[in-house]
């Protein structure tokens, strides 16, 4: 059963005379109860997908395509209906936990107010919040509630945000770059945290990350994005152990543990994308075909892949 279906999602931002194609024709489904990962390097458009899901993009963005959540077309919803979905049925764990907490208010108030709207008594709400915080490895939650956000460490802030996001009891949790800017220890903590959320709550999750280790630990299925497109989509273990697309291969082999083999060149300009395959200039296997025709995404060995070569080989 698919909880979320995205079809042909494109996002463009006007820039000078042209426009920046941040996301082009992205389609994927998220099944209920699974953890779906989008991995890609900076500028691949992965975060834009997450924001587009909740219609949180800036006003000048030109969005097209369909997003269907639990049978509802998100793009056709009225703002009032959208508000009912945001935060309650789909919640977004923001990229930067430091920015998502109000520096002038105590932590307790900020987590407690989540329950305010649902007609839950303040005391009972706090109890629930405290229980949740304890579950997410936050020690001594009562004391934390009396502190201000800037008195917490980065990892603690992230857990607090996670506790808040989960207390909405959303059907879908979107986590945008949860390990960005964290030091290795906090990163390990985050991996632990997401494994726990996945195992204990069984939530459907969309994990947007550049961190292959995190994706490997937590995700069931992974979509790899490059230059605004999905280039490969498959089971997590298959993608990370036997990738099919040359970009995915390069990305994985560039990881220090897998050999630190550099991928030559860099991602193309998003205003003027190259002819043919967006990756052909960096691809070691590039054939004549690759520089002429843009490949479509196709089924391949149970997954989906966007490459001419799979069929040439």
């Amino acid at each position, binding site marked *: 059963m698919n909880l979320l279906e995205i079809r042909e999602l494109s996002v463009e931002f006007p820039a*000078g005379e042209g426009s920046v194609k941040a996301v082009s024709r992205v389609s994927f489904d998220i099944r209920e109860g699974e953890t779906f990962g989008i991995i890609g390097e*900076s*500028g691949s458009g992965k975060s834009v997908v997450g924001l587009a899901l909740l219609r949180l993009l800036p006003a000048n963005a030109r969005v097209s395509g369909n997003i269907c959540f639990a049978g509802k077309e998100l793009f056709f919803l009225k703002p009032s209906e959208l508000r009912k979905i945001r935060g309650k049925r789909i919640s977004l764990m923001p990229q930067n936990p430091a920015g998502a907490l109000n520096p002038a208010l105590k932590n307790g108030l900020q987590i407690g107010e989540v329950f305010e709207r649902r007609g839950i008594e303040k005391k009972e709400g706090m109890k629930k919040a405290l229980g949740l915080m304890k579950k997410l490895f936050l020690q001594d939650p009562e004391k934390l509630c009396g502190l201000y956000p800037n008195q917490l460490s980065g990892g603690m802030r992230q857990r607090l945000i996670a506790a808040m996001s989960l207390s909405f009891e959303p059907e879908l949790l979107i986590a945008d770059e949860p390990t960005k800017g964290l030091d290795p220890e906090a990163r390990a903590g985050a991996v632990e945290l997401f494994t726990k959320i996945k195992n204990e709550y069984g939530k459907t999750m969309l994990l947007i990350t550049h961190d292959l280790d995190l994706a490997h630990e937590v995700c069931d299925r992974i979509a790899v994005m490059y230059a605004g497109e999905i280039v490969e989509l498959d089971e997590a273990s298959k993608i990370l152990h036997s990738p099919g697309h040359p970009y995915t291969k390069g990305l994985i082999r560039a990881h220090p543990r897998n050999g630190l083999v550099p991928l030559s060149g860099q991602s193309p300009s998003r*205003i003027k994308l190259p002819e043919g395959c967006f990756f052909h200039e960096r691809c070691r296997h590039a054939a004549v075909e690759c520089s002429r025709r843009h490949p479509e995404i196709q089924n391949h060995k149970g997954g989906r892949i966007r490459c001419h070569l799979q069929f040439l080989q």
Partner: protein
Amino acid sequence: MDNVFADRFRREGFLPQLGEYGGEFAKRVFQRKDMLFALAALVLFAGVALFAPLLSPYDPNAIDLKNKNLGPSEGHLLGTDYLGRDLLSRILIGARISLSIAFGVVLISLLVGIAAGCAAGYYGGLVDECISRVIDIFLSFPGVIFALTIMGVLGSGIFNLMLALSVVQWARYARLMRGQVLSLKKQEFVLSAVTSGAGDFHIIRRHIVPNAIAPLLVLATIDLGHVILSIATLSFLGIGLPADVPEWGAMLSAGKEFMRTAPHQTIFPGLAITFVVVIFSILGDGIRDILDPHHEGGEMY
């Protein structure tokens, strides 16, 4: 509103980057109609100030007691004052005086402020401690009152007025510059200039000042308006310039005695002051918005 997004997209390379600094800046200026308007008005005003002696229909100091306190008419477009002097001519000449004093004051305070701020921020330690204390003391004194006291000592006159106002203004530039230098000093490109063996003077001249100057220029633009207001205030109190110099504030002060019968003498000079200050406010805000995309300002019209 969502500058958080804009910032992130810029960083991730979605948005176009600022190109060559000068060209891009000019382009942005021309995209904003409020700044275009202000720029045009400023050019007009500067032109008027430069060619005031040629443009003014009468000698601004020619006394004509037979035609005193006249309202606006064909002969005198803006009327005459209590000594029968042509108001339009006096306002035109007044533009010249106000603008030149204001530019002088801002230039002096800018230079002194940059020097003091650089010294305090770059060298730190005891130098910083001393300069910062002096800055604090100068800033703990309401500006106009300070200038007033100094003018009381020096006596009226254009040079004295410039001196008094510069003494008041420099500390704000120095404080701003110091803050800028302190944050720049920690940036990697300055550190790498240090490790590559460049001297202090080279680093200040090539790296610190060019990168620190933008907010000071914004302040300077807005300050031009403030200084013009201060000049007018002091002259209004009879302390700024000698009585026969046609200055807007002094004209207002003289005109207020005849407010019942000849209100134009108070209205027109005040309008002139407001107009100039509005121009500098728009320009200052506009420059800040263009230079600093994080600051949410928007057009001011």
